[in-house]
């Protein structure tokens, strides 16, 4: 689980071009959107595609994203439970 969380942080920093953010700067329970890391709706689309591409998880209801992408903890938990690859 810890390796997955590390992987997610690295992906978010690299894929979403968070130039001034390091892996250590993101706590596992930090909010990813809004006041936390400050991600926005376009980032949410990037994360949905990432779930499909990297873990074989298709989100049929985008509204699910709100809970799944709340933090690194919630993302890792969802991926662990639903991953296909």
């Amino acid at each position, binding site marked *: 689980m810890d390796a997955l969380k590390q992987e997610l942080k690295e992906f978010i920093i690299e894929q*979403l071009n968070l*130039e001034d953010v390091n892996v250590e700067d993101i706590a596992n329970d930090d909010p990813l959107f809004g006041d936390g890391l400050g991600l926005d709706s376009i980032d949410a689309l*990037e994360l949905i*595609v990432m779930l*499909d*591409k990297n873990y074989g998880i298709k989100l049929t209801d985008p509204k699910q994203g709100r809970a799944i992408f709340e933090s690194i903890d919630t993302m890792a938990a969802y991926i662990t439970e639903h991953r296909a690859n």
Partner: protein
Amino acid sequence: MKQVYINSVASISAQKTFDNAEFLNDFIDHEAVVFPVVNPDYKAFIPPAAARRMAKGIKMSIVASKIALQESGLDQVDAIITGTGMGCLRDSEKFLSALIDNDEQYLTPTAFIQSTHNTVGGQVALELQCKGYNFTYVHASNSFESALLDTKLLLSNEEENNILVGGVDEIGEHTFKLQELVGHVKKEPVKASELFESNTSGAVYGEGANFFVLSNEKQNNSYAELVRVKMFNTLPKDQLTETIETFLASHNLKISDIDLVILGANGDADYDDYYDILSQGVFKETQQAYYKHISGEFNTASSFGFWLAAKTIQSQILPAVVKRNDLKSTGFKTVLLYNQYRNENHSFTLLKQC
């Protein structure tokens, strides 16, 4: 019809040109087949959250736009007009590569929404919060001139009063490889200072963003008056001299009235003959300047030439690094720019001291 003035300039180029207090004081003698840009501190101009999705061309343009707007003394412009030959090439390549690599699956939005030619104009408008006329001209090496012509018409007809106009192009890795493959780029690195002695095929490439605020009201610190810009898609070699003479005559000018001719020669032995016709012909007794050995060649490199002309007229100084002959004008009152790329998209741009 009102006259049109260049009220501010800004340049991001392969030289340290982003500081308007300087004028090519320190020449960087690049040795390469593509000249890299001297980057300003982008973070000082663009909030990190906004910058993270911006490719090089957008960042360069926003910084140049902000410098130009600041220098103009205006809070806002009425319109933003952009010229770009290739648009946001890097994100186009990124999106298309992902399309191929992922077998048309898993396509993400960021690169796609930033990949269109008018992304630059849109992003500059967002940064400046300008909700006015916004247009992008994409016409190979006449892209900047097309933007300039629209700007001039709008200002002359008083449809707008202050316009931000610019030219921008960025290097895209894949596209550059294709340009190398078809022989548009020199095969060996060339020193900037020796480009015109290389006598080889192809050009040395570059990238950059040059933005200007043009207005139909003259200011005390206006750089120059933009008298006219004229474009030709094709122009036979044997008609070049006569066409320039006719162009000047339409403004009651003769060749001898031109204090400085700025030519867009790029050191390509196969295509610089147009410039040679002029430099060794009618403009033999005129002071001459070249600039693509310091900017590199790109579709909107002529906007760097425009920047050079404006700075020269305002300062009445022609930096040694761009001088092409030893003739010295008594002053730079009337300056003509001529540009073409691979014998296509010719342009004449006439500027006057104001």
